[in-house]
């Protein structure tokens, strides 16, 4: 169901009647410069998004800005983070739209979504649970363990998201290549155009 929708997005939506007409998705992927500008913006915006969230996390760990109130740092730095996140999401959606079916069968893309979900869940838990008594440790050079755990989870999750994003560009585990059965299953290769080739079946 999901895959059919993505196939339609990639190959049908915006396609004219002519034999060689491209869908919008194909036109975006094949564009002279637009795809590169989107991808470049996606990577460069990491400086704004991940760079600023990292500093807030380091403050929560108590390793920098120890004399600055956490509320002040959050009020001044997090708007920049949110702005950066908006750029990441917009360019990320557009890049996904250029190759939706390929990414659907990409193990790194799937892992990236899992880590993004983990990072967002961590933010929710931080706001709902950890921050409840923030007034008590707003000025503490070293915040309580719960806040520090939040910061470590945040740093680890975003680092993983960035790593998965870079690995997505490589075809090590492309469907159709021989690989262990669990990898074929994890990226639904059986449903893909190239199919699933289990490593065990090609070994002599």
């Amino acid at each position, binding site marked *: 169901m999901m895959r059919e929708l993505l196939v339609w997005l990639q190959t049908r939506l915006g396609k004219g009647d002519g034999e060689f007409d491209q869908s919008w998705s194909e036109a975006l992927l094949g564009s002279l410069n637009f795809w590169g*500008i989107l991808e470049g913006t996606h990577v460069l915006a990491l400086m704004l998004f991940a760079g600023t969230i990292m500093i807030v996390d380091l403050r929560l760990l108590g390793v920098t800005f120890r004399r600055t109130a956490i509320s002040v740092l959050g009020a001044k730095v997090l708007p920049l983070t949110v*702005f950066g996140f908006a750029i990441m999401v917009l360019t990320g959606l557009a890049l996904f739209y250029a190759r939706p079916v390929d990414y659907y069968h990409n193990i790194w893309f799937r892992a990236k979504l899992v880590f993004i979900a983990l990072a967002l869940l961590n933010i929710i838990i931080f706001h709902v649970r950890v921050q409840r008594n923030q007034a008590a440790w707003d000025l503490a050079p070293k915040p309580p363990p719960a806040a520090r755990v939040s910061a470590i989870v945040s740093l680890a999750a975003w680092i993983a998201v960035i790593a998965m994003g870079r690995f997505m560009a490589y075809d090590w585990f492309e469907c159709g290549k021989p690989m262990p059965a669990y990898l074929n299953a994890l990226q639904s290769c059986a449903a893909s155009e190239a199919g699933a080739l289990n490593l065990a079946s090609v070994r002599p």
Partner: protein
Amino acid sequence: MTPAEFLPELRPWVENLVNVWPAYVIKPQFASWQVLHILSLVVLGGCTILLNLRLIGVGLTEEPASEIDRNLRLWLNLGVVSVLITGVLIGMANAERLYDSAAFTVKMFGLVAALIFTYGVTNRVARSDGAVSLSSKIAALAALALWSYALWVFTTAQLINPGMFHLITAAGLVVLFAVRGRARWIYLAGLGLLIAVQWVWTHLFLAYDDIARLDPVNKGFAWAFAAWIIAIGLHQLFTAGRDQNAGPLTKLVGYTGILMWVSVAAAGRWIAFA
């Protein structure tokens, strides 16, 4: 201008770099080293953005610039050192490609400019809470000369000049963060108008595959965007926030510090595209 055009006699040496330790060791894990390079860029970028925005009078204004510098110094240094180490490693493993890349020329000239500017100007200005010393001015001139050359190559080299989009966009965002009140709305209205006129011109009056006519129009708009952003940036430089202990020169240091690193990162990304 590719490095090969500067130093043609180096080709055999460059071609052999991949066989030299540690390049052949890291080559199989090239992607993981790229990740480390990007993570270093993130650390460096976050520190650069916060410190320089403070010099412009934006962001952590509750603290003096010297306090921001004191807190970020370690992390900035860590980002710079690890971006250089990982850069040399992946560069050695990918040397032939870089040798024939004009974007790499931009990146290297921009990198030296950014290093001189960060350590000779930005950090010193921040440490003295906005005062720009004579030695900082001399360092700034040296960095600006190198950066001007980098930007000239970036704008004129075939295939990589679309990468200038990132620099113009970053400048546009910094100015958006910096201008306040009515000026911000006038600025946004101007940007919106330019975007609308460019879209109508290039989509309704020109065919999408008529590159010969689209190219000069798009380049003309790139200059128009840059001019509008610079004009409003200059307005912010001379009018806003005089009470924040940040004169026009201090703010100019802030703008330049961010944009130099953005140009290095943008050129770095366009190595892969052209």
